[in-house]
Structures are given as structure tokens and as C-alpha cells.
């Protein structure tokens, strides 16, 4: 049974702690990937390394290996976190209705959402995708990575898409 004094494990920490720390620090600037999630990823990476060590399997390219393990665990943890968040939001709505949020305003919000969706259908394809991505909360750099568009093209498409949307919905543009 392994223990913390295991020389192989101490060697493993010496070999990889700097690399793991750097890999995780590299992604620390992103939202939703902070604090406990980083700790969890680090744990999973060490666990994977430990298992390989126990099987005496060499790691030919530690950078790629650690990165792929870290990414895989990030996917799992982020999916779990997103699911937990959306479930807890649904529960809040069900159990603790705010007195300010009347049935009427819920209905209005739903109708507005449907109107936005209908308006989006009228946009040209690229503007529609840019506007959708913007509305869902992605920033310009993230939209660029998702679509392969340049930063300036993203800004242009989002700007025009949102203007079109407001025009179709007959909303004033001054308050943007």
C-alpha cells in the first residue's frame, strides 16, 4: 500500500509538480475554472500519474499527457458544475418565488424570449450565429475561437446582428 513516504511518489511530485502547477495556472484566468475546480483537476492529474507509475508505464511526453488529463478532467468537472448550476437555478425558481417576479413578468420574459428567437430567424446566417453567441454570454474572443472568425469580424457581426435584432423587435437603439 502506498504511503506519503513512498520514494517513487516523492520522485513523481518532484518531477511533475512544477509542470502541473504551470498547466493549471495557465487556465486560471478563465471564468468557472477557479478555486475548488482547479484543486479537483490537480487531484485527478496526480491520480492519473500515480496509476501510471504503479503500472510502471513510462510517460513519453509529460507535457501532452498532463495537458490531456487536465483537459479531460476539466470537461467532466465543468459539465458537472454547469448541470448543478442549472438544476439549482430551476430549484430556486420552483421553491422560492420572488414576490417581485410576478407571473405576468415571467410571462413577459417568456414572450420576449420567443420574440427574440423569432427575430433571430430573420437574420443572415453569420449575423444570427454571432448574435446568438453574444446573447448566450460568449465574449468576442470566445466567439472567434468557436467560429474561426477574426476578432474584428466577430465585433462587426455582433454589432450588426444586435442592431438588426433591435430593429426587427422595433426597439430603440439609443439605450444600447
Amino acid at each position: 500500500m502506498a504511503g506519503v513516504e513512498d520514494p517513487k511518489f516523492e520522485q513523481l511530485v518532484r518531477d511533475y509538480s512544477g509542470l502541473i502547477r504551470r498547466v493549471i495556472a495557465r487556465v486560471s484566468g478563465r471564468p468557472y475554472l477557479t478555486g475548488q475546480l482547479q484543486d479537483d483537476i490537480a487531484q485527478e492529474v496526480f491520480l492519473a500519474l500515480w496509476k501510471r507509475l504503479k503500472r510502471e508505464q513510462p510517460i513519453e511526453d509529460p507535457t501532452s499527457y498532463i495537458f490531456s488529463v487536465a483537459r479531460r478532467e476539466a470537461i467532466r468537472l465543468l459539465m458537472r458544475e454547469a448541470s448543478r448550476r442549472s438544476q439549482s437555478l430551476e430549484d430556486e425558481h420552483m421553491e422560492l418565488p420572488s414576490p417581485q417576479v410576478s407571473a405576468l413578468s415571467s410571462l413577459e420574459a417568456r414572450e420576449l424570449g420567443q420574440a427574440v428567437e423569432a427575430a433571430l430567424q430573420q437574420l443572415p446566417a453569420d449575423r444570427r450565429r454571432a448574435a446568438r453567441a453574444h446573447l448566450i454570454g460568449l465574449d468576442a474572443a470566445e466567439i472567434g475561437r468557436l467560429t474561426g472568425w477574426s476578432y474584428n469580424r466577430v465585433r462587426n457581426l455582433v454589432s450588426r446582428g444586435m442592431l438588426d435584432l433591435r430593429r426587427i423587435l422595433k426597439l430603440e437603439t439609443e439605450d444600447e
Partner: protein
Amino acid sequence: MNNDRLASAYRGTAPPSSHLTETAWEALLDGTLPAAEREAAREHITRCAACATVYQGLAMFAIESRALGASARSGSPFRTSLRSWPASIAAMLVIGAAVGLLYRGARPAPGDESAPTTTAAPLRVEPIDPIEPLAVRVAQNRAVTNRGPVSNQVFLEAFNLAIEPYRAGRFPEAATSLADLGATFPDAAEPPLYEGIARLLAGQANESIAPLDRALGLASGTEWLPDAEYYGARARLAAGRDEGRQTLVKLCATSGPYQAQSCRATVR
């Protein structure tokens, strides 16, 4: 009604009932998802708040994977499932201790933490991205000449002449003409910015720092700020000054037009 309310209403509409799978996420980030599925995945992310959140958290991993050349192919021998956690409490203690060491800043054996010792191969060193010339443009308020002050037109004409060697790739000549332009229009960010870039591209890294610093000072609060920061950092790095790397690391961690380049440029 502002755009935030529109966004809130959009996110509140019926979300898709299914989500991208773990395998689909990996393939999407690797660029191995077939074209039709990739399009469907992209479309899904723009409609599903939960998946958009996952994507935001993974975006940096996508950049880093490309930069590091990391692979997570489906046939990889590394794809051993990690789901089956060992029951051994000792193993958990080991992992906990490792994370503790990690976050206490434990250092590996004397020498270099970036150079693993016995079992690990040396880190892969990727070439830094070549420096690309910044596309020629002027500040948006200058481009609207029919509404701007008359001096905008004067500046635009002078700028067009001075930038011509830059457009043609004659960077030493461009550096001189843009330095002259900067003396005539000392409040404009464009001349020192393009002069600095021209010097950088002409192999005059040390000489490029001063104009780029001047551009940075003039760019505060303007659209030129990311350009001045990025090229200023690249100039310092090219001149062997390590503070340039710190700026690139900061840009790498910040959403903006130079995020991807900065990440690639900081990979050792």
C-alpha cells in the same frame, strides 16, 4: 430595453434537452469532430447556456492544446479510464499530499522545475510565433472624415503617404517616414505604433521599444491599447528583456484580440 434584458430573455427560453457529450467536447477541442457534427456543436453552444459555460471554461485549454501540440486522440494509450477510483485511503492521502505540496509552492529538486528529472522527458520547446505586421488602419474617429474635424483629413493624407513603405514591406524606410509623421502629429497614436512595429520587423528590436512605449502612452483608453501592449511586449522579448513575457502572460489570460498569439508566444 437594453441588450442585457434581451440576453436574459434569450437564455431563459427553452434550453436544448440534450448536451454535448464528453467525447464530443474532446473532439471539438482537438479539431477532430467531423464537419457536420462540428457545425451542430457550434450551433448548440450558441443556444445552450450550460454548454456555453462549459465552453468558456475550456476555451483556454483549446488554445493551450494547440500551442503545446498536446493530443488526446481516441486511440491514445493514455486514455485509460480514471473513473475507477482506488479504494485505498492511502492513495487518497498521497494525492492530497501532492496537491498540498503543489499549492504550497513545493519546488522540485534543485535545478529546474520545468525540467523533470528521471522519469520525465524534457519539456517540449515550441518556436515563438513570428511577429506579423499589424494591418494598416486608422482610429475609427479619424476614418469618419465627413463628420470629424478638418485636421483628420490632413492627418489621413499624411498618414497614407508615410505608411506606404510599411504596406510594401520596406520597414526601415517606413520607420523613418513614420517617425517624421509622429513629429508632426505628436498626439496621434498611429505614427509611433507603426514606427515601432516597422523597427521591430526590420530587426531593430531595441530601437522599437521607445516608439512603442510612446504609442502605449497615447493609446490609453483607445482602441490602440491592445496593439501597443502586444507589440511592446514582443519588442521587449525580442530585445532580450523578460518583462515582455510578463505582459504576454497577462494578455494570454485576458480576452482580447491578442489572446491566442500571446499564449502561443509565451509557451516555453
